[in-house]
């Protein structure tokens, strides 16, 4: 049953050292504010799951909070590489991380399998590719009806999934619009679900009947954090801060610059700064 909490409480009560956690969002609706709160609380030894780890995992990895990363595209979308993650993989800085690498299709299927209560995902994938040689989680299964060999990987079952969404109703139902990515699947696959939202409205009456909604009884905690996806965007509220993604390429390239940025922009501030950050980006 969804409980409205401050972001600090929502993170402290739901994310624990050693957890497997997904902070999902597909370019859109990335829960930056929640990840920054996890960094402030210094919750470490995490297994981070995400299709596109993006700059928010770059920050968590750069702060040494990740033990393992399960992913399918370790890039700063449209810009280039994730330089803190690379530093961890190539130079074990600030610590070595284990990586479990998949394709997007595999990750999406694994979340869907998790949400479906299945132990594995089955799909037509990885044919001729080298990932099965370096990822022991990729196996194959033979269709009992046709004999076709298909890829099989374990379902994702995060301890906790964090997502950002447009709205919650007063009751705690959550509405997600626009590019909805894998958020519904990642939420329903997890044991606990924490959602940051732009705003709370009385109810969702009169809206389109086929909207993407997580009922309140599937959500553990909700924190209202306007601008909480920045520099990602929230469809209908503010645009993507592309300049910030370009800027991250420079910040993340240098260990000292990175540390200084985290101190000034994460450790020394609270979730309320996100509202100011999107002021100039509102449509």
């Amino acid at each position, binding site marked *: 049953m969804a409980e409205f909490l401050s972001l600090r409480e929502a993170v402290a009560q739901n994310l624990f050292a050693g957890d497997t956690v997904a902070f999902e969002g597909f*370019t859109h609706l990335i829960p930056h504010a929640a990840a920054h709160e996890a960094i402030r609380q210094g919750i470490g030894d995490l297994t981070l799951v995400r299709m596109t780890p993006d700059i928010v995992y770059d920050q968590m990895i750069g702060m040494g909070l990740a033990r393992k990363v399960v992913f399918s595209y*370790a890039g700063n979308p449209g810009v280039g590489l994730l330089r803190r993650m690379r530093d961890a993989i190539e130079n074990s800085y600030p610590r070595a991380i284990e990586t479990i690498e998949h394709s997007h299709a595999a990750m*999406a299927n694994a979340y869907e399998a998790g949400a479906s209560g299945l132990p594995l995902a089955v799909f037509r994938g990885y044919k001729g590719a080298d990932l099965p040689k370096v990822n022991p989680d990729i196996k194959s299964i033979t269709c009992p009806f046709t004999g076709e060999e298909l890829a099989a990987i374990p379902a994702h079952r995060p301890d906790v999934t964090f997502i950002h969404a447009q709205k919650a109703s007063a009751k705690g139902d959550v509405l997600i619009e626009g590019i909805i990515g894998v958020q519904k699947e990642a939420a329903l696959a997890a044991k606990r679900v924490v959602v940051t939202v732009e705003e709370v409205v009385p109810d969702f009456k009169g809206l389109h009947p086929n909207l993407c909604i997580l009922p309140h009884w599937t959500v553990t905690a909700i924190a209202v954090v306007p601008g909480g996806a920045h520099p990602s965007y929230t469809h209908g509220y503010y645009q993507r801060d592309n300049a910030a993604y370009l800027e991250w390429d420079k910040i993340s390239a240098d260990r000292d610059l990175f540390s200084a940025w985290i101190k000034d922009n994460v450790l020394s501030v609270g979730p309320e700064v996100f509202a100011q950050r999107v002021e100039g980006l509102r449509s």
Partner: protein
Amino acid sequence: MTTFTPTEMMTIAAARALTSKDVCFVGIGAPSAACNVARLTHAPDITLIYESGTIGTAPDVLPLSIGDGELCETALCTVAVPEMFRYWLQGGRISIGFLGAAQLDRFGNINTTVIGDYAHPKVRLPGGGGAPEIATSCGEIYITLKQATRSMVEKIDFYTSFGHGDGGDHRQRLGIKTKGPTLLITDLAIWRPDPVTKEFTVVSLHPGATRQMVQETCGWPVKFSDNLEDTPPPTPLELSTLRDLHARTAAAHAGTRG
């Protein structure tokens, strides 16, 4: 004659390969520019799909990422990512997959994962994203990249996406039913696979490009078609469409709007 850059020629030559009938899975970068130039010139009814779930999108500016809001706002519809990969890609609904590459070999195998050893890479690249299944589930694959000996290599370090493997019928032997790479467009030439060996062969040279230039920027001994053609230079409409698109994109991405 209007002057143009080799990269502009590459993008425009790639755009010409697309038609209004195509349903195209679009990668970011040069593929995205080419697909949208096609849409804005000779192929207005092309269906562009980005892996963020946007179907039939018509962006006014090129997206910086595959999930920019512009893609969703201009799309016919937007579906969840698991649905995109299961129903639309794996379901066989997409005719052309358009990919770029960090490393490419003569059989159209692509590496975007690591340079060097996987466990101890010299350079850790972003990885495959959607590409491993795009490469095997789309009807056929078009590839664009700028020629350089470090990207067009004798042997790729990692098979991120399978092309024609060792050539010949390697795809069929793995049970892959789609055609795989059928077209490679670089900044110097248009290449097509040999019908039997599947090795990429130069079939057309772009204006100003020579056989020597193609060979010097390619890491394997290049085969040229007996009927080598000249790629027609960009038309004023193609060039202005591409440049306008880039100008709108640069203005939109320069910083904070509003």
